[in-house]
């Protein structure tokens, strides 16, 4: 049975339709006009317990609005959501006991108090026992180095520390379903790595995770399934590996030749491959269809005939695939 199920989920907002400039402002004052804007458009989504799902899309695609609908913050204009059998909006308090939420751009720490005070208040809110609280704080400290800034005022934390503290706040009650909206936004590489390792451990422990992020490394390292949303509707929903297998059908060899590369001549000589100039005059990039040619056969032919000084292999990243999905170049 799914832990989360959304059917035909739709959210429409009413926005002021105001012309720019002074005239537009005055006109809007006496004659108000509004336009409806559909942020989430008939989404069907089902998540099984223990799944880790990446929910990605370009800015304004409706990711955060979906998270707010799934967590019960917003009421759907149409459609239904059930999280652990409950309507998260009408049964908000009961639902809140079982979910953890992190909005990367909004902190849940009490700004002018030590981090520890925020966590203790959340302990009260969720009715966490002293023993569980101590055990979880110890674990967070081990994985997120929480101890170093527990006594610090929230407003004095660096962004990375703030995000780690917020993550602890979202997980202090060991929720079954966790929503993370841009948890690594603005963080440096080392903090990102630490957070991703923590999230992998969370998933391994059986927590269900829905993660939105613009950082595709977050997605590849933490999630098994990806849902791509664009203009409020789902553009792709399936395993990340399947997305790669389905759409990543080319590979590339970067060759460094002894002298300057004559790209047109090489293209004439090897017409089955795509040739392009590299970053230096002696570098050339050869792209081939991986379902037609094996890497060994391509490399064998190229090295025997061109004797390159050096070579390296690359394949399109998931980022390239998603960028093409956003651009409408790929279809489901």
């Amino acid at each position: 049975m799914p832990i989360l199920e959304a059917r035909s989920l739709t959210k429409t907002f009413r926005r002021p339709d105001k012309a720019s400039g002074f005239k537009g402002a005055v006109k809007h004052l006496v004659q108000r006009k509004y336009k409806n804007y559909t942020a989430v458009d008939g989404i069907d989504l089902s998540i099984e317990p223990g799944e880790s799902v990446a929910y990605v899309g370009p800015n304004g695609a409706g990711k955060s609005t979906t998270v707010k609908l799934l967590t019960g913050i917003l009421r759907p204009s149409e459609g239904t959501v059930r999280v652990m059998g409950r309507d998260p909006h009408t049964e908000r308090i009961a639902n809140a006991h079982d979910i953890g939420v992190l909005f990367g751009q909004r902190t849940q720490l009490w700004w002018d108090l030590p981090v520890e005070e925020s966590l203790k208040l959340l302990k009260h809110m969720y009715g966490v026992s002293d023993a569980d609280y101590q055990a979880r704080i110890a674990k967070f400290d081990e994985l997120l180095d929480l101890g170093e800034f527990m006594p610090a005022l929230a407003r004095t934390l660096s962004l990375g520390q703030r995000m780690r503290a917020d993550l602890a706040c979202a997980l202090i009650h060991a929720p079954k379903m966790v929503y993370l909206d841009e948890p690594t936004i603005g963080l440096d590489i080392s903090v990102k790595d630490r957070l991703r390792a923590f999230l992998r451990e969370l998933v391994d422990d059986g927590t269900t995770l829905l993660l939105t992020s613009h950082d595709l490394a977050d997605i590849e390292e933490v999630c098994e399934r990806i849902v791509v949303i664009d203009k409020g509707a789902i553009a792709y929903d399936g395993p990340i590996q399947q997305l790669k297998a389905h759409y990543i059908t080319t590979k590339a060899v970067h060759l460094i030749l002894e002298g300057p590369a004559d790209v047109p001549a090489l293209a004439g000589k090897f017409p089955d491959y795509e040739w392009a100039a590299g970053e230096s005059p002696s570098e050339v990039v050869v792209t081939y269809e991986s379902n037609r040619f094996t890497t060994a056969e391509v490399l064998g032919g190229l090295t025997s005939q061109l004797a390159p000084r050096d070579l390296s292999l690359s394949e399109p990243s998931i980022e390239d695939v998603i960028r093409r999905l956003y651009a409408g170049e790929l279809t489901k």
Partner: protein
Amino acid sequence: MASVDLALATISFKRKIAYKTTWLFSVLFGGWSLLAGLAVWSTLIGDGELGGYDWQAMKAYLIIGFLTSTLAWAGSDWEMANRILDGLVAIDLTKPVDFQRARAGEYIGGMVASLPAAALGTAAAVLAFRPAGPDSALAAVLTAVSVLFIFPLAFGINYLSVLNCFVTQRYLGIQWARDTMLAFFSGMMVPLALMPVWLQGVAWALPFVHFTTTPASIYLGRVDTAGALGLLAAQAAWSVGLWVVGRLIWSQLVKKVTVHGG
């Protein structure tokens, strides 16, 4: 009070006292307002009386006004409003607590933080100006109960005004309107007895009157015991009424909550 309510009130208390300079400034400003009021009314009353207040009674009235206004304006209404305007209300809605109760805990915790300042200021003013004493021991007790009702009344009025932010997306005008109504109809600015009768009627139909006029009337014996108990019952009724209205409005607003952005 349940442990979560108490925890929220405690957090709010700690946050309030975390800003010591602001806290000290509010005490000094409150004290200055009291001194200014005493100087003005001393000149106006002289050896006579105004609206049934002689100088001794007016001093008591102004000191009660200082105490009640310090409490009435001690809550964190701006913080509640900003959470709605900035979208942080989204975070509040992911917590397993009743929204209104949680805000009440926070608000009243903030008010409690101002109690030491209010009590110190009041004690200093009593010692320095020797106002009229309470009409009776019972009047003193009932006055204290009446002052305690300021906590739920202040929350109720501030909560209702803050809820407007969901619709208006601005708070400043609402705050000005509410504070003006409070200062005027409570009798903090001018005792109700000096207002036209019809305006007194309007004031008594509103909850603001129970911030200053009610405790001062009980303290000075301007109402008998039955009248005092009636006023306390009115305070209790307003406290419950404002709470229920807050609940009804929230139940409608929560369906229309809009939080844009990530």
